C-alpha cells in the first residue's frame, strides 16, 4: 500500500534475512551423528519484504509464529544485520546503530524486561533518563505524565518483582517511552495480560500516538490489539509479505458477508426465511443469515418489518478466521 504524499518514516525494500541453523535428528544415533558431522540448514526468515510507513501511522504486523515478524522488527531496530535489501528508519540505516537513531526509536518486547527486578521502577527510569540525556526536571515531568496516562503513579516506588504482570508491562512501556521516541516498535506488548490490562495498554498506545504523532509498528497475537489500533496491516507468511493494506478492506474482500443472527418469537417455515437471504443455519427460533456488506441495512430492515423478532445481532466472522483465509490463498495483488 502506498503511503501517498505523507512523509515516509520507515522504508523497507526487498529486505531479507537468512540464518544458518544446526539440523539434528532425535535419538542417540542422531546425537552422535550431529557430534561427528554437523549438518546445517538455511532458514529464510524474511524473504524480500518491501513496504513504506508514513509518520504517525499505526500499522499492525501479523503472521503466524515463525513468519518473520520479529526478525523484521529486529532488522528495523538495528539489532540484526539484514542478509540483503534495504531498510531506513527516520533516514537512518538501523544496523549502523547511530546514537541519534537510537534516541528516536524504542522496542517494547512483551516477553523481555529491562527494568531491574529487585528495585523500584523509578530507579531504572533514572538510569534511562541519564542514558538518553533527559534533564532531571524534564524526566520527572515525563514520568509523571506517562505514569498518569498508564495509571501507575502509585506503584513506581515498589520493587518491580512485587508488581503484577499488567503493572510491570505498563512500567516497561514507561521505561521504553521516557525518551519520547518518534518511532515505536512493539513486539507482543499485551502478551499474557488479562483483558482489562490489554484494554488499558491499547488505550495508552492510541493516546501516545495521538499526543506525540509517533509512528507505531505493532506485532500481536491478539487480533483485538490490531483491530482496536491499526487501520493498516502487513501480513507476513513464511517470510513473505502476503498483504499490505487496509484492515477493513481486507476483511471486506476475504469475508464479503456479515452474519445476521435473529431470535424469533416462534419458528417459521424455511421458505419464508430463505426469501430474505442466504441462510447459514436454522436452530429452532434462532436463524443465521449470511448477508453481503452492501445489502446489510436493507436486509436488517426487512427482517425487522416482516418477522416477529425477539433479538437481533450483526457480527463479523472472527478475524483469526479471516487471516487464515488470506494465508491459505494469497490475495490478488499480494507482494511476493
Amino acid at each position, binding site marked *: 500500500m502506498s503511503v501517498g504524499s505523507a512523509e515516509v518514516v520507515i522504508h523497507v525494500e526487498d529486505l531479507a534475512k537468512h*540464518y544458518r541453523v544446526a539440523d539434528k535428528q532425535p535419538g542417540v544415533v542422531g546425537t552422535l551423528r550431529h557430534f561427528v558431522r554437523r549438518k546445517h540448514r538455511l532458514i529464510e526468515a524474511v524473504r524480500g519484504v518491501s513496504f513504506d510507513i508514513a509518520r504517525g501511522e499505526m500499522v499492525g504486523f501479523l503472521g503466524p509464529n515463525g513468519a518473520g515478524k*520479529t526478525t523484521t522488527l*529486529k532488522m528495523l*531496530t*538495528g*539489532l*540484526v*544485520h539484514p542478509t540483503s535489501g534495504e531498510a531506513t528508519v527516520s533516514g537512518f540505516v538501523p544496523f549502523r*546503530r*547511530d*546514537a*541519534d537513531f*537510537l*534516541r528516536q*526509536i*524504542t*522496542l517494547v*518486547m*512483551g*516477553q*523481555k*524486561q*529491562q527494568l*531491574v*527486578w*529487585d*528495585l523500584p521502577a523509578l*530507579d*531504572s527510569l*533514572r*538510569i534511562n533518563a*541519564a*542514558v*538518553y*540525556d533527559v534533564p532531571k526536571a524534564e524526566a520527572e515531568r515525563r514520568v509523571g505524565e506517562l505514569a498518569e496516562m498508564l495509571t501507575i503513579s502509585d506503584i513506581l516506588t515498589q*520493587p518491580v518483582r512485587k508488581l503484577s504482570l499488567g503493572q510491570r508491562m505498563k512500567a516497561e512501556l514507561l521505561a521504553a517511552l521516557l525518551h519520547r521516541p518518534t518511532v515505536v516498535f512493539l*513486539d*507482543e506488548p499485551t502478551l499474557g495480560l488479562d483483558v482489562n490490562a490489554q484494554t488499558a495498554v491499547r488505550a495508552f498506545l492510541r493516546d501516545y500516538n495521538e499526543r506525540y504523532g509517533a509512528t507505531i509498528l505493532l506485532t500481536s497475537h491478539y487480533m483485538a490489539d490490531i483491530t482496536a489500533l491499526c487501520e493498516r496491516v502487513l501480513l507476513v507468511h513464511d517470510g513473505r509479505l502476503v498483504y499490505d493494506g487496509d484492515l477493513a478492506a481486507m476483511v471486506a474482500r476475504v469475508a464479503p458477508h456479515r452474519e445476521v443472527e435473529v431470535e424469533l418469537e416462534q419458528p417459521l417455515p424455511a421458505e419464508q426465511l430463505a426469501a430474505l437471504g442466504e441462510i447459514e443455519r436454522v436452530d429452532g427460533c434462532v436463524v443465521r443469515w449470511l448477508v453481503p456488506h452492501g445489502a446489510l441495512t436493507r436486509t436488517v430492515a426487512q427482517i425487522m418489518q416482516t418477522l416477529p423478532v425477539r433479538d437481533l445481532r450483526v457480527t463479523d466472522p472472527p478475524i483469526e478466521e479471516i487471516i487464515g483465509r488470506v494465508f491459505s490463498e494469497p490475495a490478488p495483488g499480494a507482494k511476493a
Partner: protein
Amino acid sequence: MSRRRPPLLRLVGLFWSTSVAAEMEYRTDFALAVLNSGFGLLTTLFGLSLVFGDGPSFAGWTWHQAMAVVGVFTILEGFTRAVLEPNLGQIVRHVQQGTLDFVLLKPVSAQLWLSTRGLSPWGFPDVALGVGLTVWAALRAGAGAADLALALVPLAAAVVTLYSLWFVLATTSIWFVKIYNVTQVLRTLVEAGRYPVSVYPFGHRMFFTFVVPVAFLTTVPAETLVGRGSWAWIAASVGLAAALALAARAFFRFALRFYTSASS
C-alpha cells in the same frame, strides 16, 4: 552531527548506586562475603608459609615480597568479584535471554554498559584486604612511597589486562552461547597468580608470561612494589594492556555483526 553523549561518570555512578542498592536487598550475603574473603586469604597465606618453611626465601623471593604478590592477587580477586563477574558474567545471560537487545538499543556504548552496569559490594572485602596486605607487605619488604606510587601503573595495567581477557571470552558467547566454562578456565589459570611466577618451572613460566599473561597480572606489579621491577617490564605490561583493550573492543564490534538475538 552527533549530540553530546551523557556524562559517563554520572552514568556509571548511577549504574553502581542502583546496582549496590539491588545487592543490599540481600544483607546476609555481605557477612558471607567477608567470611569468604578472610578464609580465602588465610588459606593462601598458609600455602605460602608451607613453601617458605625451608628458609627465609624461595625462588629469589622473601616472605614479605611473596606476600605482596598475594596482596595484588587478592585485589584482582576483589575486582573480579565486584566488577567482572556481575558485568561480564551477565553477558552470557543477556545473549541467552535476548536482553542484550535492550543494551544494544541504548544510545551509549554497549561495551561501556556491559562492563559497568553492575557492581557487587561483595568484592569490596577482598579489595580492602588485598590493599591492606599489599601495602603492609611492601613496607615490611623495604618499599618506599615512590615504589608504592610507581606500582600503581602496572597494577592499573593488570586490571585492564584481566578485564580485556574476560571481555573477549564473554564476547564469544555471541557465537557459542554457553561459555560459562571458558571464563571458569580463565579464573582457574589466573589462580596461578597467587604466587610469584618464578616459583614455577620454566615451561609454566613461559606459558604464564606469553600465553595467559598471569605474570603481568600479579608478579610485575608486586616486583615494582618491592623495588625489584624494571622499566622494561612496566612498559611491557602497559603495552600489553593497551593492545588487549583495543583487541577486545575490535573483537566485540566484530562479534556484534553475528548477533542474531534470542528468538521470542
